[in-house]
């Protein structure tokens, strides 16, 4: 894999973990699905037709050089599979796109905050990914890019159905708004399942990764809107924002209660996480996620002094494709666990004060 390409070499801006409410909200994402009139959706389209979609987008970019000066076209067929996987881990492209690469492209902004997928499930998918709770900012940018695209392209749009998409679950606004949240307080106080199941009843989709027992791995969940038709973009964003604010409040309350009742336990947990991560030689991704979460909670609560930026970076860089890209070769599961432990140890040297 060519190591000099910026999407291979650099870390995405969103990984820095800055932005409003970044102690609880890792990222905010807005994605718009758009299609061109009269051309079949990518999975049914001919090579000529998908080529035309690319040419059309290319023309828009050519007509708006100023707006797209920081963007680069990447052809997926020219990427090695590991490189594609790396892009999936960075959320530049979708997992589906990494699998089906026929005539697909990504138009990527250099800081990786914007990626425009071409010939994915829909002809065009505009994605804006910001660190912290910045739904409004992400929407405004996606909206602006959408307007530029539409100024030169004939979108498939119908007055009643809105933006027409390959999957009827996206039709209407074509918008998917997602938040990635770190909720260790709600997990430790065992409130998480009750709260998440309540969210799923108000039209939100909740996704979490569960490990042994009922614990969410890394205490990270993703929340997104399910409904795209019948609500405006603003309403959808406002709803998710309101839910996020409530969750943040509940999470902070849980953290405060934990701090009052079992301060030593939390400090012990964070200290042990630091100890293991600084010294371990073999670490699975599941274990690493959990330990990083424990450490992060200790840092957020001021119980331990550590640069949280390093934790944020590691959430992405300890994943399989990143490790293999770093080692410049394929690794089996065991080799990855060793490599992961080494990476973490190296990053931790000199970071704990």
């Amino acid at each position: 894999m060519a190591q000099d390409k910026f999407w291979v070499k650099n870390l995405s801006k969103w990984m820095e973990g800055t932005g409003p409410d970044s102690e609880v909200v890792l990222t905010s994402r807005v994605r718009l699905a758009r299609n061109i009139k009269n051309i079949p959706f990518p999975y049914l389209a001919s090579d000529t037709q998908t080529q035309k979609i690319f040419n059309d987008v290319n023309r828009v970019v050519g007509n708006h050089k100023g707006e797209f000066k920081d963007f680069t076209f990447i052809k997926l067929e020219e990427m090695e599979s590991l490189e594609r996987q790396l892009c999936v881990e960075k959320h530049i492209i979708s997992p589906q796109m990494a699998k089906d690469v026929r005539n697909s492209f990504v138009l990527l902004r250099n800081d990786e905050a914007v990626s425009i997928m071409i010939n994915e499930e829909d002809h065009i998918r505009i994605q804006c990914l910001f660190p912290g709770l910045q739904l409004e900012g992400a929407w405004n940018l996606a909206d602006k890019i959408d307007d530029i695209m539409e100024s030169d392209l004939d979108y498939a749009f119908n007055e009643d159905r809105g933006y027409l998409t390959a999957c009827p679950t996206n039709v209407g606004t074509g918008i998917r708004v997602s938040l990635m949240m770190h909720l260790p307080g709600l997990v430790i106080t065992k409130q998480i399942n009750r709260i998440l199941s309540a969210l799923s009843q108000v039209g939100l989709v909740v996704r979490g990764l569960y490990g042994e027992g009922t614990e969410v791995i890394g205490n990270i969940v993703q929340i997104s809107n399910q409904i795209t038709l019948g609500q405006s973009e603003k309403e959808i964003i406002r709803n998710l924002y309101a839910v996020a604010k409530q969750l943040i409040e509940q999470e902070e309350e849980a953290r405060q209660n934990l701090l009052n009742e079992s301060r030593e336990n939390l400090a012990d947990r964070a200290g042990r996480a630091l100890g293991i991560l600084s010294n371990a030689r073999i670490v699975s991704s599941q274990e690493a996620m959990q330990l990083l979460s424990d450490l992060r909670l200790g840092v957020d609560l001021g119980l331990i002094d550590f640069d949280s930026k390093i934790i944020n970076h590691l959430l992405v860089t300890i994943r399989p494709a990143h490790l293999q890209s770093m080692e410049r070769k394929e690794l089996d599961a065991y080799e990855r666990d060793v490599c992961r432990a080494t990476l973490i140890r190296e990053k931790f040297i000199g970071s704990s004060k």
Partner: protein
Amino acid sequence: MLCQECNKMPATVHLTKIVNDKKTETHLCQQCASEKGELEFAFEPKFPIHHFFAGLLDFDGFETPVGIPGKTKIQCNNCGLTYAQFSQIGRLGCSDCYESFGEKLNSLLRRIHGSTRHTGKVPQRSGSAIKVKKELEQLRKDMQKKIADEEFEEAARIRDKIRELEKDTEGGGE
């Protein structure tokens, strides 16, 4: 419990997804989970969403029409996709499918979104006529409300705005 994917290793990764309060669970070993990318926190739902509405379709009995002799085939003229194919793959073939599958699709949309009518963004350029139409609708509603509230001055102001908009669209519209 053994991994559902390879049936060899013990399942240590348990994925739970909740949609509409319906839980789906998948149990994988660490290896298969990372291979399947399930550890990557992908943004898009990975559990096939078609399962979700395949269920709805079955429920509606769309695929087993009773009492319809000869079973009429519903097909999109533009891309050739049939409704039966759509309900299997869960993807429409082209934007015309929305027209071609008409009422059947409406009932599905109602189940997924609780609505069949878009109320959000309208494209700037190609949607300018629609935009004006929607704005006029809103203004007329506003005017009726002002009249009902006996705020006649306000109502008259809105009426003038409506007239202006109507004049603009007659003059410059396509």
